[in-house]
């Protein structure tokens, strides 16, 4: 674009007068401010419970998306559930930091095995993991299940494989676990609850 001498002067003049008006204090920014937008405005809210101590505080979990098929729900915020009669919306520093537990870099993402003597983990499929573990369990059970004790009483116990259960799993998981273990004949089972 060719700028004529005349245009050039015009531009300069406008610029100059603009800046000199500004210099007089006619600030171009009006006296107005906006707060950061509320990040939960259209997030999906789900009622859940803090998994830490036994106060079992109610929490509200906020996820992205509206649960529509193609929008992957991602947890973006967790805060106290004001309806819960015990915590009434409050949380402790652990509960208030739950998001970082959910998002911990140390979350496990897939089954892994560390072979005997190896010094590293190896990713395996769920099918492999379950088959290999079940094979171990069956072998041990078949070899060591005691059907009758010395007095000839039927005891049907399997005490060479132990099980320690979480006290953070839900009631349903706990019940199913004990049902399965007792069904297998396990007696060496205990939970975190003891300690």
């Amino acid at each position, binding site marked *: 674009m060719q700028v004529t001498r005349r245009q050039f002067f015009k531009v300069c003049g406008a610029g100059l007068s603009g*800046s000199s008006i*500004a*210099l*007089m*204090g006619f*600030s*171009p920014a009006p006296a107005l401010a906006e707060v950061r937008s509320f990040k939960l405005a259209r997030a999906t809210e789900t009622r859940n419970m803090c998994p830490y101590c036994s106060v079992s505080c109610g929490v509200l979990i906020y996820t992205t998306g509206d649960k529509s098929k193609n929008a992957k729900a991602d947890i973006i915020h967790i805060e106290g559930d004001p309806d819960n009669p015990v915590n009434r919306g409050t949380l402790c520093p652990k509960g208030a930091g739950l998001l970082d537990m959910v998002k911990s870099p140390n979350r496990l993402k897939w089954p892994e095995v560390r072979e005997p003597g190896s010094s590293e983990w190896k990713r395996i499929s769920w099918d492999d993991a379950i088959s290999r573990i079940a094979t171990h369990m069956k072998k041990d059970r078949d070899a060591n299940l005691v059907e009758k004790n010395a007095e000839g009483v039927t005891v049907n116990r399997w005490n060479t494989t132990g099980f320690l259960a979480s006290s953070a799993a839900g009631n349903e998981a706990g019940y199913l676990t004990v049902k399965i273990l007792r069904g297998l004949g396990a007696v060496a089972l205990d939970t975190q609850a003891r300690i």
Partner: protein
Amino acid sequence: MIRNPKDLKRYTAQERANHWVVGISFILLAISGLAFFHPAFWPMTQLFGGGVWARILHPFLGVLMALSFLSIFFRFRSLNVMTPTDREWLSRAKEMVDGNDHDMPEQGKYNGGQKMMFWALALCMLLLMVSGVLLWRAYFGFPVELVRFGAVIHAATAAVMIALIMVHIYAAIWVKGTVRAMWYGTVTRAWAKQHHRAWYRQVTGK
């Protein structure tokens, strides 16, 4: 402007360059500093690419100005030693301001006013430098009480210095034939003879 080979050399090229480095950095510092000082001047930060750039550049410009001023200071320090004549000149400065400079005492390269200006600017520069460092958070962290003190000193000194420079510039504009000394380095003999007769005699030997 007709250049006359008989014009007198007042400033060398290095001196002029030095002066303008100080001058330009001062102007940039003044406008950015004023922008921080009072909202009325804030839009001037646009000249620097916005407030953040103005904040980043201002102290570096300050360092530049301080260093180049230091060079000026050492160049001209000996020429600015006050003499009894200067004091007499100063005591009659009102006549000068009124434009009656014919009967003023004969002046060397610089008159009493200029020398006062020199020393006042040097003092301001020192104060600005020290207080400026106190405020330079990007690289320094001083106790907040000291920083507050520094802020007041910096602002007050800067205001004084801007006023002094305004006087400096006005004096150059008012006294016709002066500005060219900093453009071309020369002044007319008439100018020298009128304003700095002792210097005139010294350089011309007349």
